[in-house]
């Protein structure tokens, strides 16, 4: 008739995890949110730097500091039509600079005032970039047969931005 030992200990634990009415509003919750926003700023700054480097190299006609051997071959990727905005001669990296700048701005705004519309907007912004990154990854792997490490770094940062923005929806 006695209750299992596990059940005796589990119930209090569950109760302990349940959010109190005011939880999420206190200092602990605030610090968590700030960390995610800080992460958004950091990821945005890094992706802006990488995008700017790719953009400058594109217009200057220089050579990227990257591997060009085997499956990793920046030249093959960055000289393909997938490196340009469709039907234009505008490098996608330039779009990356603008996207990153907006993401950084969103992160800073989150740290300062965090208006209600910001979280879904940032998630949508990151989601759109993630979808485009998946399209470019497909082009790299399935069409070009090569990947570029700078592009991959950007894709990882975009994914990180997406998950950070997602975490702020909680």
């Amino acid at each position, binding site marked *: 008739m006695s209750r299992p030992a596990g059940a005796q200990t589990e119930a209090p634990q569950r109760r302990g995890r349940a959010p109190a009415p005011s939880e999420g*509003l206190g200092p602990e919750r605030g610090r968590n949110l700030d960390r995610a926003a800080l992460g958004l700023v950091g990821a945005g700054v890094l992706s802006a730097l990488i995008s700017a480097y790719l953009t400058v190299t594109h217009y200057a006609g220089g050579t990227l500091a990257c591997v060009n051997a085997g499956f990793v071959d920046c030249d093959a990727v960055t000289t*393909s039509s*997938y490196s340009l905005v469709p039907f234009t001669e505008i490098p996608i990296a330039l779009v990356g600079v603008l996207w990153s700048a907006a993401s950084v701005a969103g992160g800073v705004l989150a740290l*300062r005032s*965090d208006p209600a519309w910001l979280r879904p907007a940032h998630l949508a912004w990151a989601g759109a970039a993630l979808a485009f990154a998946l399209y470019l990854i497909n082009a790299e*792997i399935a069409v070009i*047969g090569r990947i570029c490490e700078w592009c991959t770094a950007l894709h990882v940062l975009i994914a990180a931005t997406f998950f950070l923005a997602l975490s702020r929806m909680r």
Partner: protein
Amino acid sequence: MSRASDRTAAVARRDRRRSEREQHVRRSGRSGFWRGPVPYVGAAAIIVAAIGWSVWSSRAPAPSASAAAADAVVPSVTTIPADVFDRVGTGGLANPLRATAFEMQRGASGKPLVIYVGAEYCPYCASEKWSVVAALARFGTFQGLALSTSSSTDAFPDTPTFTFRGASYRSEWIEVSMIETADRQGRIIAQMTPVQRAAYDRSDPDQSIPFLSIAERHVQIGSGYRPEVLAGRMWMQIADQMRDPSTPLARGVIGNANWITAAICGQTGGQPSNVCDSPGVRATQAK
């Protein structure tokens, strides 16, 4: 003091907004979904599935060429109607050829010498050869042209193309010397002749391929258009699209061919006139 109180007020305002948002979220019932693992797992699953699909599609078997396919493809590519060349013009391409200061190079017959240096494994050679074949077919005829694909392990893997190995070319206007230096696996299969080597060394200091010399007066290094327009297509599909000026493929392949044609016309004294005076070739001269 006032700065400190301002800061305190700002923090209070921020906390109030958060409080309101949290209450709104809780009231709207969204919190259960957003707090659970579903969004994370779902997003991660989509990312993994998309990348997995890309990897899976990249492993499609290389297209296999047959003599029967060559019998259909080669006549199609070597008899592109003149109006297709005319309608495409430059295809929006900038001139992919560079003028040199060298004297005109002539072959043993005294005709302007066109040299092509490439390799079967090379994907950029693969794309370039579609234009080279289409352009040269306007001045003469190929024999023994076979189908091939670029390397399966290089960029733009298995790009359908031709091989010049074992092929020959005759023309009233020009002489053509073409070589595939390596096979699909990158194994050396031929050495350049002294004439090819001299032109290659003079005009291509980086020693890259494909290399195309129009009597050494114009050279093209690399593909004149981007090879990805050929991706996912078989030879006959490429040959068919080359005849449709509205396609990006035709603009790339035929636009490049028009530039090559114009450079050759510059060395043949504008002969044959039906080719060199055509609107497609003249379109390049206007650039």
